[in-house]
């Protein structure tokens, strides 16, 4: 306990320098600004804004990136409440009751509750990360290549279960991501693989390029095809601060949402997405009058928003302790860390404690910033959302181009992004989900490395993955999850859950 406090104190002394506070503030502000734009989720936002952090020292850069991430998350919720379209997967649930509240003239209260809920969830999650960081880092020491490999297999299995649509398609799209990850120079022999002789591909496909293509560009194409059904709240936003009655109704959902989100967020394979859904279902189940849900129930905003933010934060745990990114956003964080010479994993905490704890402390400060920035700026976001899409999408396009160019100062990257935009469009037309592909791509390189190491150690025996107890246990869980996912009645319920 004393350890924890000492570490947090170190963190706050790092995060509270004037430079780092400013970076955190700027990150939250621009993150929200871009994240509010409809159809621009956290992945595209971070890829676009990554170059903003290049001139800063590693600690400051990560603090700023984390700020951008929270800003983008919160921006998505703002769009969900004010407009009837969710900015990203995790705010789908917020649309249900948040937009109804907005229609009833209570947009302000919905936004305020979302901000307060997120802040409480963020504060709890920060302590959670700080407390779990050390034991999990020690756990990482028990992990050999076989265990790492099996853990990542488990992560991908989660991604299959969490994807919408057919299980077969989700599995296929993950393998597609894995195949894409093998493009580039082979780590052991230095031979070029699947590069088509294109020099830009020798280092492999840049993650930001792939993500921006299939999330940023393809999203613009999708939005252009679906005629605009934006229904920006007209009329008053109303008061922002929830009344006593509202608070009383929201506090318990916030607490439950925080718990659910924090636990699900740790799961590899983007468990954070599940948090808001789980919270909404739970609140509806235990409510005295479930019929209020979908008609502007404040619990339906408070709980999922808290779960959303808690999960967004605890998703850092696998990255910081094991070095495994659990979702696409965290993979971008890996990219950013590598650019700054920090290799994520258990060694960060011991080798660079001020960076590790500074980032954790800045998470809390970032949440506070969001509360401070967003409440007074709501009017600005409303005005921004009223800009017609015919002007908005060329602007998003230009930001994407500049962002991608600036990551490596390579014009070829922009052209490659356009190619992946087309690929993302094709995936959409064929009914594939892009998120599992990105996760497969992200984990692919790490998986290949650990797989090959494990095979060398075991002298070519597959049994090593099953014989080693920890690895075997992880694979057993994986098998159980996959079996459950294809069981007919679970399959039906899963479809129903996504329908809701």
């Amino acid at each position, binding site marked *: 306990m004393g350890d924890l406090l000492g570490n947090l104190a170190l963190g706050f002394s790092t995060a509270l320098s004037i430079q780092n506070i400013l970076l955190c503030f700027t990150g939250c502000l621009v993150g929200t600004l871009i994240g509010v734009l409809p159809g621009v989720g956290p992945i595209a936002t971070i890829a676009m804004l990554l170059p903003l952090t290049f001139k800063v020292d590693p600690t400051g850069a990560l603090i700023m990136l984390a700020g951008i991430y929270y800003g983008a998350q919160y921006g998505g919720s703002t769009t969900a409440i004010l407009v009837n379209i969710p900015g990203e997967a995790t705010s789908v649930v917020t649309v249900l009751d948040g937009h109804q509240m907005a229609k009833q003239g209570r947009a302000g209260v919905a936004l305020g509750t979302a901000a307060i809920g997120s802040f409480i969830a963020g504060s709890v999650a920060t302590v959670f990360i700080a407390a779990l960081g050390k034991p999990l880092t020690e756990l990482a020491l028990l992990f050999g290549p076989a265990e790492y490999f099996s853990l990542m297999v488990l992560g991908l299995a989660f991604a299959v279960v969490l994807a919408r649509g057919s299980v077969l398609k989700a599995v296929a799209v993950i393998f597609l991501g894995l195949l894409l990850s093998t493009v580039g120079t*082979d780590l052991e022999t230095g031979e070029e693989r699947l*590069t088509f002789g294109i020099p830009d591909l020798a280092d492999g496909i840049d993650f930001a390029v792939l993500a921006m293509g299939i999330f940023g560009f393809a999203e613009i194409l999708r939005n252009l095809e679906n005629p605009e059904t934006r229904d920006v709240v007209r009329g008053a936003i109303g008061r922002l601060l929830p009344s006593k009655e509202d608070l009383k109704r929201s506090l318990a959902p916030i607490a439950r949402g925080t718990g659910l989100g924090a636990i699900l967020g740790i799961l590899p394979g983007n468990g954070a997405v599940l948090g808001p859904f789980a919270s909404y279902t739970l609140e509806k189940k235990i409510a005295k009058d479930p019929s209020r849900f979908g008609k502007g129930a404040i619990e339906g905003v408070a709980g999922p928003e808290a779960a959303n933010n808690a999960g967004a934060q605890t998703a850092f745990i696998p990255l910081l302790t094991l070095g495994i990114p659990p979702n696409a956003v965290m993979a971008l964080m890996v990219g950013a860390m590598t650019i700054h010479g920090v290799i994520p994993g258990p060694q960060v905490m011991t080798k660079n404690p001020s960076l590790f704890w500074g980032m954790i402390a800045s998470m809390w400060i970032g949440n506070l910033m969001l509360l401070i920035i967003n409440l007074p700026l709501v009017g600005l976001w409303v005005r921004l959302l009223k800009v017609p899409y015919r002007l908005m999408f060329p602007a998003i396009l230009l930001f994407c181009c500049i962002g991608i160019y600036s990551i490596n100062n390579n014009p070829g990257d922009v052209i490659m992004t356009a190619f992946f*935009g*087309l690929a993302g469009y094709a995936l959409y037309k064929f*009914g594939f989900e892009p998120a599992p592909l990105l996760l497969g791509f992200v984990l692919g390189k790490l998986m290949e490395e650990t797989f090959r190491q494990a095979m060398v150690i075991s002298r070519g025996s597959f049994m090593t993955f099953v014989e080693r107890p920890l690895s075997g246990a992880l694979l057993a869980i994986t098998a159980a999850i996959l079996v459950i996912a294809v069981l007919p009645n679970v399959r039906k319920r899963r479809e129903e859950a996504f329908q809701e």
Partner: protein
Amino acid sequence: MTVKSPQEVAAGLFLIVVAAIGLWQGAELAAGSLNQMGPGMLPRALSVILVVLGGALALDGFLEKGAGLERWHVRGPVFILGAAVVFGLLVRPVGLAIAGPVAVLLGAMADKGTKFVETLVFGVILTAFCVGLFKYALGLPIPVAPWLLGY
């Protein structure tokens, strides 16, 4: 046998084509042995798995009723992705000052309702804002107008 879900069949064929490209590009790489894996083993193994999955998906499309083929639009992809390609080609030789408005104008044509003058003015203002932000405020080394300013 009739196709019951054109989308599934098309998706399966798409996977098979991608896997075939993977097999073709990886044909010359040594596979090695499990003990000492070569660079070609994983790409080949993954491609084969994709062929199997693609085949299963296509077969499923013959057996189970499902979604039809979606209509592919031409206008959106051509102008949006074209704008990005043109931006990539122009940014080094003529700089952001030209590449910016050109990309905005070209991209905006993806939407039928675009008005030329409005978009041009908007593109110029937006580019000026980006130059101010990315070049001057953040100091990113993106060329602005090499033909005029020398950088």
